[in-house]
């Protein structure tokens, strides 16, 4: 059985100094505390601490796998994004400059997730979803605003805020947050028992979810070029 460490390969790109700062607030947020300069910490498998690569910029897209990689079907978000990243890096794009895309896998929600999105032009969130009204393994993509109608109470996330509320809070403080957030959801089944195995319908849905994310990335690439 592989360990969590092996389930978390370091991101393919090497975080640059500027990309290391953003553990939370980004441009536009007033920060009365001391400035957090670039850290010299080499941080193994640093993925969760930072949006990586060149860091999200206004034209960039951030692709976030959300979930707990050792909680059954909840790990599907990570598996999808890891594969998308591999495919994105491998796909030849003759003559075309790669649109900036940042890949990230996290087990976060609410404010912490919002803080990871600061600075990106658009975001694609990939996650296991249990709506109960779709067959297990169904892949769908919809704007976040349609998935969560309106703002929700703070009970949404038992420990801070729902993502829409966190985004609104961030914007009210001047943070630059993605104008477009798409959710690629995979209807999940088993998310209450620890284990690295995905249930069969969810595992089977992985490639469809990967294609869905790549399709959105392709659209974005056209738009940003």
């Amino acid at each position, binding site marked *: 059985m592989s360990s969590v460490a092996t389930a978390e390969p370091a991101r393919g790109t090497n975080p640059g100094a500027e990309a290391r700062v953003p553990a939370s607030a980004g441009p536009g947020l007033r920060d009365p505390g001391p400035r957090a300069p670039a*850290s010299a910490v080499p941080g193994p498998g640093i993925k969760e601490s930072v949006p990586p690569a060149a860091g999200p910029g206004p034209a960039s897209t951030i692709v976030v796998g959300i979930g707990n990689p050792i909680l059954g079907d909840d790990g599907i978000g990570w598996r999808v994004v890891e594969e998308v990243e591999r495919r994105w890096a491998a796909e030849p794009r003759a003559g075309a400059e790669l649109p900036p895309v940042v890949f990230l896998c*996290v087990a976060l929600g609410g404010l912490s997730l919002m803080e990871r999105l600061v600075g990106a032009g658009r975001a694609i969130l990939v996650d296991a979803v249990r709506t109960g009204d779709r067959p297990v393994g169904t892949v769908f993509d919809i704007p976040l605003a349609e998935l969560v109608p309106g703002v929700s109470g703070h009970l949404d996330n038992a420990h801070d805020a729902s993502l829409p509320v966190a985004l609104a809070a961030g914007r009210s403080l001047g943070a630059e947050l993605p104008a477009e957030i798409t959710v690629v959801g995979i209807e999940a089944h088993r998310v209450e028992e620890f*284990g690295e195995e995905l249930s069969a319908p969810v595992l089977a849905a992985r490639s469809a979810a990967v294609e869905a994310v790549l399709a959105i990335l392709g659209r974005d690439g056209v738009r940003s070029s």
Partner: protein
Amino acid sequence: MTRLTIDPVTRLEGHAKIEIFLDDAGEVQRTYFQVPELRGFERFCVGRPVEEMPSLTGRICGVCPEAHHMAAAKAADAVYGITPPRPARLLREALYSAFFVTDHATHFYALGGPDFFVGPDAPVAERNILGVLQKVGAEAGARVIGARKAGHHVIEMIGGRAIHPCTSVPGGLTKGITEAQRSEIEAIGHSMVDFAEFSIGVFDSLVMGDPAYRDAILGDVYRDETYYMGLVDPNGKLNFYDGRIRIVAPDGERLGEYNPAEYPDWISERVEPWTYLKFPYLKRVGWKGFVDGKDSGVYCATPLSRLNAADGMATPKAQAEYERFFATLAPANGGPKRMVHQRLATHWARLVEMLYAAERLVELASDPEIASDNFRAMPTATPTEGVGTVEAPRGTLTHHYWTDERGILTKVNLIVGTTNNYAPMCMSIERAARSLIHRGQVVSEGILNRIEMAFRAYDPCFGCATHSLPGHMPLEVTLRDAAGDVVDVIRRDG
């Protein structure tokens, strides 16, 4: 009998369900508070090397990976019978102090704050951090975000990653910090002290300065007199990272103090047929049901309980605030120790702890030894069994591991913060329901929220509730008459 249920319409991870049963007269007969349990973590760990546990246990959920990381590292130390060198202790406790400031700040402003700053009767759409920001102002909001950022930065410098630290291992840490980093952490600590004092000022003016909220905190709706648990240092002062576990009775008398490894002699677990979670209680006092008082073994492990259990705080500003806390909420009663039983005071207690954690961070970062290269002792003994305990933001957290002679886990037992508080949470919810629902009652959003406030004070953690999408928790209240027919449904669609 009328049955009232506060229940999510859609099954989402981490949700809780409250059921309130009314009698024919419309009075609350009994309440049940059910939480889902994530299963199989202990089994998942068996067969793995104990060295993996500090990183692995952070995956239990995304709310407090730092606490699990520390408890696991300490349990792994104990498995190898090794004491980390002093610089390692300084580093771990510094990381942990920064984490406490960050976590308590988030709870205060985003979770607890809406009940006070926006008000329990405000529409649910406003009762969130956005509403708080409108009340306390954008500058305060920026300070909250700034404090979170600084806290994550300290955690990353020492722990290697900002959210799921990975540097603590049996015998110490895998890396140290530079002198420049030490200096930076010290400066961050000072800014956190300022932020904690600012937050206490906010609480003072907007909560204690408001007669309605002050009455809610001081009144009996949210008051339960239970035993209290907390880690204390050799001087009897609160410590988050290490110490002996002290148990204090509701009247302030000390029941005892024990080494965390002795927990099986002190704690038993009660099984109830209506929930999967077990209810820990004090063995020496015994289980007497969901009742408070000195004869009931129900105990509480929260920021409030830690203040009640300790003789004081180990840093000067936090000590002054500790004294003001007790002078305001618990006038001297001639007993062995002033005690605060009002559960909503947990929010204030959290701020006292935040100030202590910030001051402690400065103390630790000011110690030149923290930047030493002597951050690990190599384990050489044959691994066997070990217990590691820390105070997590939500209560005393214990990891207990058994291994074979190669250090491969054969058994794992975890007692997490929220579990300690399951019984008192149920009692607080029932007391609030009894106080707020009466014959002729109108079940309004505000009343339901006031009941929820009873358990929100505990900041309960129900597993991995932080990362599910769609990320909203609709609530449904069903009113049934004595015949069981539905007479009303109130639905909150997130």
